[in-house]
């Protein structure tokens, strides 16, 4: 059952969000909720089936899903609550979250602290402006990775990959192992942008050509990609005339960079660094909006998942500390309620901390007159805290009494104070 208020709400169940949830629980947050738009926890790690993860965190060479599973198991063991298949629509600077999902319906949730862990998304064809026709068959490498590794679809038979980053090279190997032909990897820079080891084990091992200082000049195909035209570029990325080549293929995969995903952050009033594309954060990963933290690839795109987890851990820890201070503020005031023979009391609530610096004066009127000596009693959870004698009590005359400083400790423990006037 989803509550209406949580200590810490985390947006996104990837490595950053999972680490944040675990750390928040370990730091003492009572209610921690992760909201995730996918059907399961783990984020993009679930489709990164290759190994090479966790050497820093676990001193083990793990596939992405295994790395995720360790964190999922820890989060669930700590009773982190999860809301899957649910999209966060809006976040206010007051930390109210609006979310919706087919199974969860429309939800309004208040958070004492929020951790933004939405990760990043891939650059698309439109963002790098590849000219040519617009047939189907142009996909980002991550989309193809999801289809091939999770959903079980092959997006094509003959591929060209644009971009020599690790995702591009790893997909080139993956598609080859699954029986596809990868015609080549084009890289606009004069050097490899991914790791050398991936060049060896993903491209060299399968005789996939790498063309440095090359890019796609245009996409050719009606309905479906039929070929691409590659071109060599100079150091300023200007195409070199005469170097064009037609490469027949049915699919072009783009591995051309990642962008932190911050639409929600902006709605919450979080300021974004134009260089990183992610929020400005302090050393505790708090954004400019108090109580809103951010961690992982939503802040800047990391090289290693281990660092995403570490950032998530710190943000979750900070968020829990913030939430606990909020909780204390919320419970700092104690209501003062009239007993059976009291009509009203002013003030109606007191700040427990006021007793640290002096007595607190209370004023009240009775309902019925009592023409004999009375006690004016203040009780907290049925225990007498203080009382004062009066010779009589009349509705027309205000009674004044003070809660003494020495009652400080007792008042910290009560849920409410009750004042009544009774016969002595």
């Amino acid at each position, binding site marked *: 059952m989803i509550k209406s208020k949580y200590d810490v709400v985390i947006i996104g169940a990837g490595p950053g969000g999972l680490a944040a949830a675990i750390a928040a629980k370990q730091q003492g947050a009572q209610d921690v909720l992760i909201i995730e738009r996918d*059907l*399961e926890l*783990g984020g993009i790690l*679930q489709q990164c*089936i*290759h*190994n*090479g993860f966790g*050497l820093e965190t676990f001193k083990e*060479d*793990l*596939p*992405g*899903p*295994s790395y*995720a*599973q360790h964190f999922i198991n820890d989060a669930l063991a700590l009773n982190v609550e999860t809301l899957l298949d649910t999209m966060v629509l809006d976040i206010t600077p007051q930390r109210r979250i609006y979310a919706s999902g087919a199974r969860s319906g429309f939800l309004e949730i208040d958070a004492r602290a929020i951790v933004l862990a939405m990760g990043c998304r891939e650059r698309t064809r439109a963002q790098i402006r590849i000219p040519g026709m617009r047939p189907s068959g142009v996909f980002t490498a991550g989309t193809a990775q999801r289809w091939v*590794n*999770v*959903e*079980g679809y092959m997006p094509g038979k003959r591929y060209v990959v644009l971009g020599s980053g690790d995702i591009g090279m790893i997909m080139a190997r*993956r598609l080859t*192992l*699954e029986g596809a032909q990868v015609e080549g990897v084009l890289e606009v820079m004069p050097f490899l942008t991914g*790791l*050398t*080891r991936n*060049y*060896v*084990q993903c491209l*060299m*091992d399968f005789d996939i050509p790498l063309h440095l200082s090359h890019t796609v000049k245009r996409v050719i195909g009606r309905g479906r990609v039929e070929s691409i035209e590659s071109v060599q570029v100079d150091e300023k990325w200007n195409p070199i005339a005469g170097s064009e080549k037609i490469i027949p293929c049915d699919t072009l995969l783009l591995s051309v960079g990642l962008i932190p995903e911050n639409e929600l952050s902006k709605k919450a009033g979080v300021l974004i660094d134009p260089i990183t594309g992610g929020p400005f954060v302090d050393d505790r990963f708090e954004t400019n909006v108090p109580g809103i933290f951010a961690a992982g690839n939503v802040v800047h795109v990391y090289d290693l998942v281990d660092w995403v987890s570490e950032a998530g851990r710190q943000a979750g820890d900070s968020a829990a500390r913030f939430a606990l201070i909020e909780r204390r503020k919320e419970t700092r005031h104690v209501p003062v309620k009239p007993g059976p023979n009291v009509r009203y009391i002013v003030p109606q609530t007191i700040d427990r901390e006021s007793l640290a610096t002096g007595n607190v004066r209370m004023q009240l009127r009775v309902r019925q007159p009592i023409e004999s000596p009375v006690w004016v009693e203040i009780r907290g959870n049925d225990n007498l805290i203080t009382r004062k004698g009066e010779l009589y009590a009349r509705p027309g005359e205000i009674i004044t009494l003070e809660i003494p400083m020495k009652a400080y400790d007792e008042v910290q423990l009560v849920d409410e104070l009750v004042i009544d006037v009774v016969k002595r």
Partner: protein
Amino acid sequence: MEEKMKILCITCPKGCSLEVTRDGQTVVEVKGGCKRGHEYAQREMTDPRRMVATTVKVKNGVHPLLPVYTSEPFPKARIPALMATLREINIDAPIEMGSIIAENILDSGVNIIASRNMNAGV
């Protein structure tokens, strides 16, 4: 007949360049890299192996595929045969991370391990 060649080490993300001197199948000398790199060079010259991460089919799972990986590096030349064998597997969900999906596959001494839990679908 001694011959010199350059290879790139894949042991860690550094990707050092190694200069290997060999006489037929025997490695005479390795220059560059670290101790693990030298072990890699030795193996790469005599018995090249790679970690393989792929998927196998799942019946009744939340997804149609289960990600799996080799328990240790697998002989490089036999990777196509490994892929063909794994394509024949079709296992039942639920499956737990770390379960052995195929033992001593193709008599290689290598096991195939589940990379994640796979719950049964509805």
